[in-house]
């Protein structure tokens, strides 16, 4: 039986891990970009990013002062007991992590502009649920920064524009964003489903490891084409010029309405923070994105 306190402790740990240490695949992608970058100014930006990542990890400090809005993705085994308590537990964990890690208070009432001071508020932290067979609880945290979120975009294209329209929309989104989302970024792209489904799939793409190619060969080809197109813009690291504007592009899709062609682009900054853990029914905890001793 998994207790609420155990889940709370895991969630606090996940938040701490996410904001202080990048997953291995993101670190590797940043290192590769540094070695391949030829623009001197762009290369210096990547050097500062790598130094910062290392320092954050060593001192256990959040790598960026914007520790984001907290989003959880929960894969709940249908046999796990006490699932109705998980939401409350994750809220408590967010409040605790805000104080203990610390996280910057980032939950603001859109009408009164009042900051709650503890990263919770109506629908925040947001929880995405997925029910799966089994008796384990898998929790992923995605602390999402504001700079990159502000340039995420949804295009309700006309269905006749098709795949070419999708490609142009992605390129335009990156060019309009320029330096603002702290490039090199990661793009989560999704087409179909409707406005909400496209954006949900686009954002969930940001959880995929960067070192694993898309198992669908058509999508893998599209991802590569988009990567090459946006990297030839010359925007570069922090928009100061260079050939690394994105670290990676991840594409997903859903079937669409005959009249609709929704394309969503979720933009993630270089500080692509995420962490996951699986809690078994006997209380055993396995961290999936970070090594924990």
């Amino acid at each position, binding site marked *: 039986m998994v207790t609420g306190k155990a889940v709370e402790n895991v969630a606090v740990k996940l938040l701490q891990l996410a904001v202080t240490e990048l997953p291995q695949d993101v670190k590797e992608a940043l290192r590769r970009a540094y070695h391949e970058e030829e623009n*001197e*100014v762009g290369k*210096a*930006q990547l050097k*500062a*990013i790598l*130094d*910062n990542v290392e*320092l*954050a990890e060593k*001192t256990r*400090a*959040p*790598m*960026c*002062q*914007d*520790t984001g809005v907290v989003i959880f993705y929960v894969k709940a085994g249908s046999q796990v007991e006490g699932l109705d308590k998980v939401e409350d537990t994750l809220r408590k964990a967010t409040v605790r992590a805000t104080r203990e890690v*610390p*996280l*910057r*208070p980032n939950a603001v009432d859109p009408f009164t502009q009042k*900051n709650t001071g503890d990263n919770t508020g109506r629908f925040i932290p947001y929880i995405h649920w997925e029910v799966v067979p089994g008796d384990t609880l898998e929790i992923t945290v995605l602390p999402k*920064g504001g*700079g990159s979120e502000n340039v995420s975009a949804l295009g309700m294209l006309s269905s006749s524009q098709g795949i*070419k329209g999708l*490609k*142009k929309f992605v*390129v335009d989104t990156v*060019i309009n964003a*320029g*330096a*603002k989302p*702290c490039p090199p970024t990661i793009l989560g792209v999704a087409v179909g489903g409707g406005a909400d489904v496209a954006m949900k799939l686009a954002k969930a793409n940001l959880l995929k490891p960067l070192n694993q190619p898309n198992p669908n060969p058509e999508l893998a080809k599209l991802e590569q084409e988009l990567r090459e*197109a946006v990297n*030839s*813009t*010359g*925007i*570069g690291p*922090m*928009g*100061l*010029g260079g050939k690394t504007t994105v670290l990676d592009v991840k594409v997903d899709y859903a079937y669409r309405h005959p009249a609709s062609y929704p394309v969503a682009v979720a933009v993630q*900054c*270089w*500080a692509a923070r995420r962490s996951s853990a699986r809690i078994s029914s006997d209380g055993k905890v396995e961290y999936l994105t970070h090594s924990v001793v």
Partner: protein
Amino acid sequence: MAVYKLNTPISEETVRKLGVNDTFYITGTIVTVRDAAHRRALLLHKEGKQLPVNLQGLAVFHCGPLVKKEDGGWRVVAAGPTTSSRMDLFEDEFIKNFKVRIVVGKGGMGKKTADAMKKYGAVYGAFTGGAGVLAAKAIKRVKSVEWSDLGMPEAMWVLEVEDFGPSTVAIDAHGNNLFETIQTKVDEEKLKIYKKL
């Protein structure tokens, strides 16, 4: 691409030596100012009142830091730059009235700001976005916090720094704007990219 070590207060003569693509490090005092602090500072100036800190010759930093209270004092945990283009609304007046010589932020600023920098003698430095711990490492002490009623990110944090950097000069005091140059190149490249899609 020269490297400059600057000590505050910085003179107009010194700041005019810097060119686009040069790198600089600051030792002395920098002050965080975001949207709300810009607005309040300019309002006080209009009313003929003094600011709590004399900004002449200092560096201002577009930053909403993550700060922790410890042993009765403040410790800056992470303090990377925020998007500077939001401050384009006020920066020309700010430079003119308060004689700041350096503005540090991320993402670049527009023509109105670049014109003021040329006219009054100031530069814009791009500090790596998200590099919050690197910035915090160079912050030796919180000298004071002003206007804390604006909240942690928006308050004016007066910080003692040592070799704060590297920042890349993206707008110099001679009208050159690195981000504008890159944007022009990107727009040219765009049409070629479209053709290949």
